[in-house]
């Protein structure tokens, strides 16, 4: 029985002449092929494609056929950059831009044994010369690709079919690299490991996921990494797919080969490298912080003690997100990352501070959605147990323009916010703040900078909007400053802190 089907998935956006393909994926699968090329219902059949994202006009077309026929379509598409299909009175023209095949890199070759076909061939990639402008919202936003791939759920976006067709994050990574056509040749899943045998020797054992016929007709052979010496052979269990090869001393690396029983020919094989000394520490969860969007952070989890590297820049644009809720989540996560990269001492230098905060029935009442997003981001950062000291530097004469009460009420409400933050993490000593200060500068300033106040990391970010503004203004840009600018700004901010009025909020 032959199992030589190929799937071809086309992601398109409409043009005046038909459909422009922004991502084509051909995958050889282990399935019995239909008699002729078959378009899936509602994914191309009769010219009706699946609309994945209505607002952005993204459609998926999907067909299955035997390897040779799909190969012909693929070849024709790549060589002529066009493909036309007709159903009765419906005709659809697909087009592709000019593409170059991406050469195999050395890194891709580390598994390859000279002269032997690899078990899981690396995909063949085709790259366009410029970014597909019509889907810039996919290149800008990883989550949008995950919604389309189906690894994340969004109510307004339908996932591609079949589920799991593309590996997680791969669509984003391909598009970001201008790769718009990918051919994934057939392989099969296998795994292997080294264990200690009862006689003190080492056993290489593993599993092959393949057909019964394949298991019957093939053997596994293990060789040394250079291929000079055969360490052993094993048949494959027809029912379970398992095999075992005793090899003597521990090797940790070698060649894994598939041998045809009838003619002893090696049909495929790869080099393998085993990673030793993996320690697994149990993670005991005793407290969970759930953020505004329902995401859970384990407060005694693996985040504690992690270092977050400074980032070059972050740009957030509300218009590229599918909806306002997703835009909020993305904005919050970006701010969290920036705050974490500042290390233990975070200094927020913003003439308007965090904006006005009100009190209602003894509780903190926020005055803007941006403020809520910022505080959510701050709580997410605090939950990681890295931030110890927060200093807000502002200028009262400017801040008061947007404050309902007088300075005493303003400061009292900020103290209430500080208590609120402390109370959330009251049971988690690692996440508690050691200090939370507000400094009123005695000189005016305008620009916003977030800096690391500690002695270790010297990071300085320039921020375009006040913390209570980006969501309402639909954009935010955060850029790390170069060494000279960073030094200048840090000097200025230090002076503001030294000469200003310091208020301890906790």
């Amino acid at each position, binding site marked *: 029985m032959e199992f030589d089907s190929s799937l071809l998935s086309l992601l398109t956006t409409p043009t005046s002449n038909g459909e422009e393909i922004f991502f084509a994926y051909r995958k050889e699968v282990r399935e019995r092929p239909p008699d002729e090329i078959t378009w899936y219902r509602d994914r191309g059949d009769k010219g009706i494609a699946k609309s994945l994202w209505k607002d952005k006009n993204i459609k998926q077309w999907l067909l299955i056929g035997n390897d040779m026929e799909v190969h012909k379509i693929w070849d024709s598409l790549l060589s002529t950059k066009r493909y036309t299909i007709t159903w009765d009175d419906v005709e659809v023209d697909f087009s592709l831009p000019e593409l170059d095949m991406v050469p195999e890199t050395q890194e891709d070759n580390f598994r390859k044994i000279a002269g032997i076909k690899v078990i899981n061939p690396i995909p063949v990639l085709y790259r366009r010369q410029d970014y597909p402008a019509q889907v810039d919202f996919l290149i800008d936003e990883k989550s949008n690709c995950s919604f389309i791939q189906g690894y994340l759920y969004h109510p307004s976006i339908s996932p591609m079919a079949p589920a799991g067709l593309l590996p997680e994050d791969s669509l984003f990574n391909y598009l970001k690299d201008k790769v718009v056509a990918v051919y994934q040749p057939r392989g099969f899943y296998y795994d292997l490991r080294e264990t200690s045998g009862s006689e003190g020797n080492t056993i290489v054992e593993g599993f092959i996921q393949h057909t019964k016929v394949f298991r019957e007709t093939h053997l596994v052979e293990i060789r040394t990494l250079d291929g000079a010496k055969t360490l052993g052979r094993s048949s494959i269990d027809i029912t379970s797919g398992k095999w075992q090869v005793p090899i003597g001393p521990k090797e940790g690396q070698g060649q894994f080969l598939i041998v045809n029983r009838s003619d002893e020919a090696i049909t495929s094989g790869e080099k393998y490298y085993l990673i030793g000394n993996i320690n697994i520490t149990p993670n005991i969860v005793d407290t969970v912080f759930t953020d505004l969007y329902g995401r859970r952070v384990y407060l005694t989890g693996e985040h504690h003690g992690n270092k977050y590297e400074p980032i070059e820049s972050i740009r957030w644009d509300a218009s590229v997100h599918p909806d306002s809720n997703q835009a909020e989540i993305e904005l919050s996560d970006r701010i969290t990352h920036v705050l974490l990269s500042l290390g233990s001492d975070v200094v927020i230098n913003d003439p308007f501070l965090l904006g006005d905060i009100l009190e209602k029935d003894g509780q903190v009442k926020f005055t803007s959605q941006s403020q809520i997003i910022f505080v959510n981001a701050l709580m997410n950062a605090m939950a990681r147990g890295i931030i110890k000291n927060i200093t807000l530097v502002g200028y009262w004469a400017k801040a008061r323009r947007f404050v309902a009460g007088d300075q005493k009420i303003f400061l009292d409400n900020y103290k209430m916010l500080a208590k609120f933050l402390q109370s959330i993490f009251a049971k988690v000593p690692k996440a508690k703040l050691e200090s939370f200060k507000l400094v009123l500068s005695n000189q005016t300033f*305008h*620009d916003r900078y977030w800096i690391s106040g500690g002695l270790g990391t010297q990071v300085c970010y320039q*921020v375009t909007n006040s913390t209570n503004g980006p969501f309402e203004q639909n954009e935010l840009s955060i850029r790390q400053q170069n060494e000279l600018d960073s030094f200048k700004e840090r000097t200025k901010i230090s002076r503001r802190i030294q000469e200003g009025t310091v208020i301890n909020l906790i």
Partner: protein
Amino acid sequence: MGVYLHHVSYYLRGAIEDKTVDAINYITSILSPIDGNKYYIMDPYLNVVDDIQYPIKESKVENSIWSFLIAELAMPDTAFKIITREPVDGIFEKGPHPPYSLPVSPLINNAKVDVCKYVDKKYCDTGMHDRFILRDGNEGLAGVHIGPSLADIKDKDVSITPYSAPTVATALKAFSDMWNACITNKEWKK
């Protein structure tokens, strides 16, 4: 009345940028920015492209005293009219005729900033020399005279003198005449 900012005293104190902040603090104390104010700025040496447009575009408002000052004055519904002698060709999406609008930015509260370029000796045989900022709004008229230009404040002495109410009215009339002439004559280009 007014302030005289001695360069040497800031130089010796070691914080030159304090002079910028002091100048801005004084000017804003006279012009008291509130919502809806209109500001009229005349300065032959004010380069709106380098000193206002780019610092705002690059989100480094404090890098230039002019962008810093505009940001301090810009409240909701604020508008600025600027007459300068400096080139205006670098304005993004510059319109075909004056006044030319600078890009709107949330960093200056989305204030409208319109610019006219004055060409000396073309209008009433007078040269443009004075530098002033006038305010008209719900709190009435106010204004300051600046001598010399704020453009390179970091390297020189600067005096800032508040105008009396009748002087502001006179200056505003002169500004309006010159503004209208700039628009009517379209930069005096043939």
